[in-house]
């Protein structure tokens, strides 16, 4: 009927439409599979790293590795004493603890300044920008900086220089999370406290910080995890040591440096110890990261 009425109207070409639809659907499916492939590739890298660490690290991990200090290679002679990473674990704990203790208060104060005092001021913008640059800046340059500033005047590598370099890395991480968490606090809460007559500093320390506590703790944990595996700046500041030492004025061992040196030594027994160390560092760092995530999720 309609064909007789509109005989000169353009006819829909069903074959062409179907071909176009097929092409569009095929394209969509191709992209979807490519994206799934990309995600799988990303996960395979993670799985491969973890599997390698578990396979090679667990085989070498024992009590001696956790507690003993460095010993030279045994050349396959089992009567010689077996070495370990105890000195490096101690050194890493000392340096990261001092670095966190120095960096955290500064980071929290800067984050507070950005969120509570300088949200839109010029100085605030500058501080925020510089802190973001420091967050991604090459960490080896921070090592060079501390070398010039501390190691040269002191006349040698030292644990305190290593801790200072790590502290500079801690600051921007804590700044970022502190500022983000303080910005999430509703302004009505601040107004309510100030309306009761409290001075601003009490409002911040007693109410704002407390409301943002879990976020700030997350930032500290993430900063700790970040510096626990940091190698490059320590190479130029605390350098490494092969015996137990808690003297901050002398070169101090650390786990990443010990891994680096033993992995590159070329001796199979030392490389095994390096794998055990790598497993310890990675498991520690990932566990802290997961703990930080859980803490943050509880808040939301």
């Amino acid at each position: 009927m309609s064909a007789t009425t509109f005989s000169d109207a353009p006819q829909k070409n069903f074959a062409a439409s179907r071909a176009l639809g097929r092409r569009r659907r095929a394209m969509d499916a191709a992209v979807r599979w490519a994206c799934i492939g990309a995600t799988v590739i990303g996960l395979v890298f993670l799985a491969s790293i973890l599997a390698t660490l578990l396979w090679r690290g667990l085989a070498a991990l024992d009590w001696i590795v956790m507690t003993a200090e460095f010993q030279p290679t045994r050349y396959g002679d089992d009567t010689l004493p077996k070495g370990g990473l105890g000195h490096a674990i101690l050194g890493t704990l000392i340096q990261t603890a001092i670095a966190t203790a120095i960096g955290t208060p500064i980071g929290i104060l800067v984050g507070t300044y950005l969120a509570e005092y300088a949200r839109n001021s010029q100085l605030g913008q500058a501080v925020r920008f510089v802190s973001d640059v420091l967050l991604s800046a090459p960490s080896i340059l921070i090592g060079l900086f501390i070398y010039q500033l501390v190691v040269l005047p002191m006349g040698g590598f030292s644990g305190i220089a290593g801790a200072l370099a790590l502290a500079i890395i801690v600051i921007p991480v804590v700044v970022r999370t502190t500022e983000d968490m303080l910005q999430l606090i509703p302004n009505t809460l601040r107004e309510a406290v100030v309306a009761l007559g409290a001075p601003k500093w009490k409002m911040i320390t007693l109410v704002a910080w407390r409301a943002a506590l879990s976020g700030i703790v997350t930032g500290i944990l993430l900063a700790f995890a970040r510096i626990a595996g940091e190698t490059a700046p320590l190479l130029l500041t605390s350098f490494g040591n092969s015996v137990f030492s808690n003297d901050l004025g002398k070169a101090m061992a650390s786990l990443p440096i010990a891994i680096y040196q033993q992995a590159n030594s070329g001796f199979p027994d030392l490389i095994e110890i390096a794998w055990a160390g790598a497993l310890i560092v990675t498991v520690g760092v990932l566990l802290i990261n997961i703990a930080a995530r859980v803490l943050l999720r509880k808040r939301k």
Partner: protein
Amino acid sequence: MSATAQQVSAPPVGARRRIGSTGDLVFEWLCRGAGLLVLLILGAIILTLFLGGLPAFREFGAQFLWSTAWQPVEGRENYGAAVAVLGTVLSSILAIVFAVPIAFGIAFYLTELAPPWLKRPVGTAIELLAAIPSIIFGMWGLFVLVPLIQSYIQFPFGETLGALPVIGTLFQSTNFAGTSLFAASLVLAIMIIPFIAATMRDVFDQVPPVYKESAYGLGATRWEVMRGVVIPYTRISVVGGIMLGLGRALGETMAVTFVIGNANRIANSLFDPTTTIASVVAMEFPESLMGSLKQSSLLALGFLLFVISFIVLAVSRWLLRPRLK
């Protein structure tokens, strides 16, 4: 009631300072001082690197920038930045080339394609990849990836593509250690994938749903929505995220040091060893003499690295600024 109100006399205006004003002043300056300290640290880093590198800049002049020499023999010392700068830039750009398609795929999958129950675990797993220390990537790269690259990529590519006329030399190499520019770029790519993917995912999530729903309502497929709506809406931030990854790759030290081969030669082929600024500093600085010309040259290299990565990171932040607000 009115009687009690009258008994409490208000303090005379201006006679007493507001309660807590001293504390306010102290606390505000404490916070501001910490902020100024951050500015000071960045300034001090630039200044010390520049001053430390000054003897080298004086000795070699502008030639330092394009000289390929690295001659530590006493009396004939001659240092140049060209090899390390080129290695840094090439390895980072190659890493971006490898990483961007994968990161885009992950971000697209996580925002549009993945079933909701899978989004969080997969997203967390990718983020954990970013938390692994760089020295672990280096070890894994050296002991696992490098042998694989050598037997499945370097040798076959060298045999098949190496015979091609002009680009053949890119794939031909006599390097038998396996540590190469290609291996370094691949490890760098794996390290920066999570950063780029996370940024892309965040910006894709910020596209107003109405825009996407309008396109779906017209019958567009998911890929067409991505290409026609999401990417045009977010492209500036996407480029910012890629620049952030580039900034990370430029300064990466330990992972690269393990797998790049640390040879002071310009790589003629993808599979030749070369070096980067960060790895030459890590390898040579601890054993150089205090105050020597070599140390000064390494500090000068550090200054160049700082300038390059500062520019890249500043551009990245500028491009991402709409997202940061």
